Each structure stands twice: as structure tokens, then as C-alpha cells.
């Protein structure tokens, strides 16, 4: 029973939600809508579990003085301070001049931008280290990368400005994006979408169960 009930609930709810895509009648649409809205509540409770785990693990590390414990202390202090300030400021925590907006503007915003900006450095080092032209295909890939990288910026266009329109880097880069890139992208999208459906079906029908539970 321990095994069958969850699998039955999974299958029943999953098939019901598939049905709701085709049946607009209130007999189906109202409960389906209720289930969708319930998900938000389930997730809200989940965040408590996650937060508790985060605090527990980091507190343990600090107490045991594990490697990098001062960073964990910063994390705990930041987490508690942000939550507390938000609670004290209440519903208007997003109004201008509050401490919460200060945290957003002066801490969160620059740190987020800085992390994203690291990407530029990593792209350069990855290009140097890993982009090896060992085969004809890799050569074609490198050529396409060259054309798109230069065609997407003013410098590439300025360098080829004297050439006829069709030979300029900008239109060539645009063609690569529009035709070969687009075709490959679509193929991956279709394959992945079918993979999504097949996985969904396996879980809903409980075919993954033996795998999940390790039972035969």
C-alpha cells in the first residue's frame, strides 16, 4: 500500500492534468485550476525546509571551524539580517529609502552584475584553452564562430564596409544565425521536447518506479 498509493496519486493527478488541456468544462477546469494554485502553497512550505537546512549546515560548519567557516558566518549574518530587516519594514519594504532597497541597490545589484560579468573572462580563457581545430568540422565551427563574433560588432562591419553588401561580416553573421544555427536549434528543440514528454509519461505511468525505488 505504501508503494501503490503514491503511484496511484501520481498517475491519477498526471492524467487528470493532461485531460484538462483538452476539456474546458468546469468539471475538469475548476479542480485542475485548484491543483495549479495549490502548487504555490506547497512551494512556500518547501522554502522553510530549505532555509532550515541552509542554516543548520552553515552553523555546524562555523561551530566545527571547518575550512572556509568565516564565509559561512557572512552567509548566516547576511541571511538573517535581510530577513529581519524585511520583517521589520513590513509591507512597504520596497518603498524608496528603506534598508531593504539599500541592500538591493548597494549589495545585491552590484554582486549580481559582477558575477554575470565574469562570463566575459571565462569565455576568453575557454576560447584559448579548449577551442581546438583538430578536424574539418572543428575548423568549420571555428570559422562560423569567427564570422559571427566579428559580424555582431561594429569593428567587423567597419573592416568590411568597402565590400559588397553580401560579403560584409554583418549580413554573413545574420545568415549563419538565421539559417544553419536555426536549423540545428530546431532539431535539438524537437528532440528535447519529445524527451520531456517521454520522461513525463514514464513518471506518470509509474514506469520509472522500479528505477526510483531500486525494486524489480
Amino acid at each position, binding site marked *: 500500500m505504501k508503494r501503490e498509493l503514491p503511484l496511484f496519486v501520481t498517475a491519477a493527478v498526471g492524467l487528470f492534468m493532461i485531460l484538462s488541456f483538452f476539456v474546458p468544462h468546469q468539471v475538469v477546469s475548476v479542480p485542475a485550476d485548484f491543483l495549479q494554485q495549490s502548487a504555490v502553497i506547497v512551494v512556500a512550505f518547501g522554502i522553510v525546509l530549505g532555509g532550515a537546512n541552509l542554516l543548520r549546515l552553515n552553523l555546524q560548519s562555523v561551530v566545527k571551524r571547518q575550512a572556509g567557516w568565516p564565509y559561512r558566518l557572512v552567509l548566516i549574518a547576511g541571511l538573517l539580517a535581510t530577513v529581519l530587516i524585511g520583517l521589520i519594514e513590513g509591507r512597504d519594504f520596497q518603498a524608496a529609502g528603506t534598508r531593504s532597497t539599500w541592500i538591493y541597490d548597494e549589495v545585491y545589484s552590484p554582486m549580481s552584475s559582477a558575477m554575470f560579468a565574469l562570463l566575459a573572462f571565462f569565455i576568453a580563457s575557454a576560447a584559448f584553452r579548449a577551442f581546438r581545430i583538430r578536424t574539418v568540422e572543428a575548423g568549420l565551427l571555428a570559422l562560423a564562430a569567427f564570422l559571427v563574433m566579428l559580424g555582431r560588432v561594429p569593428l567587423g562591419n567597419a573592416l568590411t564596409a568597402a565590400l559588397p553588401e553580401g560579403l560584409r561580416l554583418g549580413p554573413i553573421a545574420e545568415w549563419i544565425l538565421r539559417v544553419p544555427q536555426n536549423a540545428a536549434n530546431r532539431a*535539438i528543440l524537437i528532440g528535447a521536447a519529445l524527451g*520531456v514528454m517521454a520522461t513525463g509519461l514514464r513518471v506518470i505511468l509509474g514506469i520509472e518506479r522500479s528505477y526510483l525505488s*531500486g525494486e524489480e
Partner: protein
Amino acid sequence: MLSRGAALAVALLGLALAVRPQPALAQGQAIIVPPPVIQPPPSAAHVPPPPAPGAIPAPRPARGLTWKDVPDDAGRALDLAWTLSPDDTLHRPVLQGYYVMRSENPGGPWTLVDSVAAGVSGYRDQSTSLQRNVVYFYRIDAYGPGGVTPQGSITGPAIAVSQWFNHTRWSVLVLTMLFFAFVLFFIQNAQGEGKKPFVRRIPGIDAIEEAIGRATEMGRPVLYVPGVQDIDEMQTVQSLIVLESVAKTTAKYETPLKVPVTYPIPFTIAQEMVRGGYLNAGRPEQYDPDSVQFVSPEQFAYVAAVTGIMLRDRPAAHIFLGAFFAESLLLAETGFATGAIQVAGTANANQLPFFVVACDYTLIGEELFAASAYLSGEPKLVGSLKGADLMKLVILALVLAGCVLETLGRHGLTAWLSTQ
């Protein structure tokens, strides 16, 4: 023996799958919302005051009001159409717009539903006050600076009826049923034959065990990153399914496993998956509940935490399976710098180039979804892969047929495939 945790995980997975936002919310379906905006309020009596000499007169009324039940919905909307008032012209400021009035009796009392601008000759009444299977009558009043003129005639009785099937979704139903039939057929077939159907070698999946083996030799942990999206993303579901197999292997090799997770629901499922893996390997006592950590749903906070684990704990194997965005290269390049063997897999096509360049092995798109079937070798699961492959052939045929028909100017197939 199935653990209670694994059963809970199955239920959570099912619930998560079931409650994904559906692209199928029918118009007018009962979503609890406050009443609609109604403005401006109508005057108590819709009788135009007698125009003062030289003042703008009241507009002449609209004509020919008709109604139609909105098809393929839950009976919560009606379509209205009318002929514009002769005063509804660009250059005469006599008419400003129309009030849509509704009543349950032809004689009133009339309630204002909404107002529409001048030049508009149709309206879809999907206000929350509209009930299905209730008889309504409608009237359109023209208004302007000179006053309000009710329409001479009314339309009705109009009834919004709930439908049992959305007819614009026939194509989706047919293709879905076909897909389900293919998958179930091949599953049945595989079970009947009892032997594993052929699946081509996928080096990326084979490399997972190799990577864990290397981590064991070096006496260092394995890092498993299940993507940065919540459980409503199927890649996360697939990644968590593969996680159990990875946990089973690490348990077998007695190698520590670290799983940082972004969202709370995948976090609880990941805990169950790892516990299940250790149980299945026959080493439940080795399971460390702290091996799965909740980090943050915030993308770059998560990156900072994971790169921190890479640099401090120096795992010898990094496995990135799931949905990834801008963090893919940040993780993979930092991982490379630590010298770890890296296996990645995602269906996010725009992140694939980064993983291909920075990792040792990459699962591309659907290979990620084939991972659990490939790893387990379970005939039923491999059968589902064959079903998906056959469906791909059907889609290819449809794409080709669509190209030919559209080129010939025939739009029937495209129209059949379009949904509402």
C-alpha cells in the same frame, strides 16, 4: 523494499508534473479574481438630457447587436457585435464610446458591464459576474459629451455554455495519443521479449561511472549539480532520477557525494534520491544527510556557492545535468581549473556550446532524457525511447508535408495544427 522516502519522492514528482502551469487554461475558467474595472460609472438614467442650443447633441444609437457563445471554453464568456452609430466618426466629437449593458430580464434593470472606445464594434464579456447557463440580455449605449443614448433594440436571450472538448486542440490530442500509443507499444513489446532493445552507445553517460571511479582513486568527492530550475522543469526531474543511480555508484565505491540544490522541492526530492541510492547499494549506513544542501534559488548566489565547493573541497568529478543558463560556463570553467573530470548534459541549446568546450563529455538535448533508461537498461524504459524515436519520424514527415503544402499555397495542415 521501497522506502517511505522514495514513495514520497514519487508522489512529489507526480504532483510537480501534474501542477505545471498548463498552456491550456480555457478562457473564462474559474480563477478567483476580484471584480473587473468598470469606469466611468453610468448616470442613473440613460436618457440624454435635452441639448442646450448650440451644444453638442447626444449621439445616435448603435444598431444590429448580435451575440455568440464563445466556443471551446468553460461557459464563462459571450461575444457581442454591433454596427457603429452613424455619429461614430473621426472628426465629430459627438460620440466618445459605448457602454455594454447587461440584464437578466429584457425589461431590466440593466447593469454596466464595461465601456469600450469609439470605433469598437465588438466586445467579449468574460467578466467574473457572468455565470454559465444563465439567460442574459444585452444592450449597447452610445455616449458622448451630449449624453447617453440607449440602443433601440436589445439582444438575447444569450447563454454561455460550457464545452466538453476544445475543438482547436484536435491535432494535439491526435499526436499525443499517437505518441502514447507508440511508447506503450514498445514498452509492452520490450516486456514481452524480455530482452533489452538496442540503444546506441552514449559516451557521456558511460563517462559518469568513469568519473566517479576516478574520484574514488583520488580519494576526493563527487559533485552533482542538478541544474538551476525548479521541479516544474522536466530536466530537473530527469536529473534527479539520474542522481539516484549516481548515488548508488558512489555508495558502491564509498566516495562522498555533494549535491547543492537551488529550489526547496528539488532539494527534498534530491535527499530522497540520494538516500534511495545508498539503500539500493546496500549501504544505508553510509548515507550522509548533509550531502544534499539547499543553497539559493538566486542564480548567481548559487554559482558562488558551487564554485566555492569546487575550490575548497576539490571534488574530482563534476556532473552537471539539468537546466542551465548563464552559469554554465562559470561553473564548467571554474571546474576545469580545479582539474576535475567533467560531464554535463542539458536541453538548453544555447548553453550547449559552453559545456562542449569546457567539459570532457556533454549530453546533448534528448540524450539527457535517455540517461535513466540507458543507465538502468530496463527494457520498459528503453522501450519508451523507441516510442519517442518513432514519434520523431512522424514529426519529420509532418514538417516535410507542411513545407510542401505551404509552398503550394495549401494551409489546411497548418490550420489543423494551430491551437487556441
